[in-house]
C-alpha cells in the first residue's frame, strides 16, 4: 500500500512546511501518531503531498496534491485534513474518493493545527476498501491527543450494513441553513488565529531580516511569510474574539453550533445518511458537527457519529462502476 501524506502531517526528520513559507525549513523533531501507525503497518510513504497554506486554499502546483497522486496511481491512498472544504473539492476535481472520519477517532497529534474542534485526518483513495483499510490503521485512541475517544481499535466492515434498508435523504431542508456559513466562519477563524499565534520567527521557521525590535521580528516574520488568505482569516479570528464582539459573535456562534448539531441529530433520527452537494454550507455542516463524511461521485454524504460502516457500504455501491 503506497501512501502520500499531506505536508501538514509531521514526519520526523523531514521538512514539513504545511504549505507555508513560515515553515519552509522546519525539520520536524517528531512524527505524527498516524505516521507511526502507517509505518508500523508496513505501508510505504511515497511522498509528502502539497497543500495550500495550512491546508486552506489549493496548492499552487496541483500535480503535487494528494488527490492527484492517488488519481494518477503515484499513491494508492493519501492522508490529509479537510480545511474549509479544500480536500472535498480536490477529491472531486481529481475523481477520487475521500473519507472524513468521526471527530475524535483519528489522532491529531502531529498535525499542524488549523481548526482544533474540526480537524480530522481523512483518507483519499480510489476505492472504499482501500480507504477504510487505511482508516482502520490510523484510527484509535492516542494518549497524546486528549480529544480521541478511548476506543483502541476501530473495525470497518461494509458487509455489516444492509444497503437496501438504508434511508437516505437528498439536500433536506435545514432551518439553520442560512447561518451555517457564518457560524463556521466565526469559529474556524477564531480557533485558527489562536493556533497560528505560535509562528513568530523566534523558535523555528522563517525569520525576517528586517527588524529593529522584538515586535518587528514577530510582525515581519509573520507578514512576510503568511498568504493574504491566512492574514485575513487571522484578523477575522482576532475580531470575533475581541472584547466588544466576543458575546455577539464568538459566543453566539458556539451556541448556534449546538442548535445546528441538535437539528442534524433530529434528521438522523429519521434517516441514516444525508446526501448533499458539496457547497460551502454542506461542508460547514459536515465539519462543524464532527460527523463522518465521504466524497463520492461529486457528492458529499454524511452520517451520524460512528456510522462509518453505512458510508462504507453506500460508497461502495455508488462506486460499483469504479474509478
Amino acid at each position, binding site marked *: 500500500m503506497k501512501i502520500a501524506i499531506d505536508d501538514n502531517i509531521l514526519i520526523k526528520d523531514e521538512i514539513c512546511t504545511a504549505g507555508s513559507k513560515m515553515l519552509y525549513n522546519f525539520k520536524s523533531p517528531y512524527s505524527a501518531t498516524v505516521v507511526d501507525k502507517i509505518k508500523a503497518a508496513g505501508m510505504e510513504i511515497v511522498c509528502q503531498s502539497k497543500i495550500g497554506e495550512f491546508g486552506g486554499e489549493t496548492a499552487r502546483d496541483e500535480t503535487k496534491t494528494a488527490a492527484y497522486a492517488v488519481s494518477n496511481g503515484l499513491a494508492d491512498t493519501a492522508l490529509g485534513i479537510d480545511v474549509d472544504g479544500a480536500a472535498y473539492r480536490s477529491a472531486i476535481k481529481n475523481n477520487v474518493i475521500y473519507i472524513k472520519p468521526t471527530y475524535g477517532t483519528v489522532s491529531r497529534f502531529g498535525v499542524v493545527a488549523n481548526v*482544533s*474542534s474540526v480537524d480530522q485526518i481523512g483518507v483519499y483513495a480510489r476505492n472504499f476498501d482501500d480507504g477504510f483499510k487505511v482508516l482502520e490503521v490510523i484510527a484509535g485512541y492516542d494518549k497524546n491527543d486528549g480529544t480521541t475517544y478511548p476506543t483502541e481499535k476501530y473495525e470497518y466492515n461494509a458487509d455489516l450494513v444492509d444497503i437496501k434498508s438504508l434511508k437516505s435523504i437528498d439536500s433536506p431542508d435545514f432551518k439553520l441553513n442560512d*447561518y451555517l456559513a457564518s457560524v463556521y466562519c466565526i469559529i474556524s477563524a477564531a480557533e485558527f488565529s489562536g493556533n497560528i499565534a505560535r509562528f513568530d520567527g523566534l523558535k523555528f521557521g522563517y525569520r525576517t531580516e528586517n527588524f529593529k*525590535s522584538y515586535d518587528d521580528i514577530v510582525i515581519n516574520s509573520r507578514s512576510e511569510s503568511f498568504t493574504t488568505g491566512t492574514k485575513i482569516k487571522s484578523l*477575522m479570528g482576532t475580531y470575533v474574539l475581541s472584547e466588544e464582539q466576543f458575546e455577539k459573535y464568538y459566543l453566539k456562534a*458556539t451556541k448556534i453550533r449546538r442548535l445546528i448539531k441538535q437539528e442534524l441529530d433530529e434528521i438522523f433520527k429519521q434517516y441514516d445518511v444525508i446526501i448533499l452537494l458539496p457547497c460551502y454550507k454542506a461542508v460547514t455542516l459536515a465539519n462543524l458537527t464532527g460527523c463522518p463524511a465521504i466524497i463520492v461521485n461529486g457528492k458529499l454524504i454524511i452520517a451520524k457519529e460512528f456510522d462509518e460502516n453505512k458510508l462504507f457500504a453506500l460508497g461502495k455501491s455508488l462506486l460499483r462502476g469504479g474509478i
Partner: protein
Amino acid sequence: MVNLKILESLSKINLTDDEKNKASEFFEFWTEKFDMLENIDTENIEPLVTVSPLVNVMREDISNKMVSREKLLENAPEQNDGYFVVPRILE
C-alpha cells in the same frame, strides 16, 4: 467599519495596501452575515466548544523526555549555549 489597525496590532500582522482592501471587503461581507445571527434565540443554550462529549481526560503525573535539547534547538534561527536567542528585545 472595522478598525483593521487594531486587529493588525493584536494579531502581529501587517497588511499591504492591497491586502487592506481585500480585508475590508471580506469583513464587510461577513459582518453583515454575522449580524443576522441575533435572529436566532439562544437563551439557555450552552455553547458547543467541541463536539466530543468526553470529560476528565487526564494523564498521570509522570515526567519523561520527548526530544533532546540539541534536536529541539535544531530549528532555531538563533541559539546560544542552550538558549533560544531573541535579538533586540525591549526593556
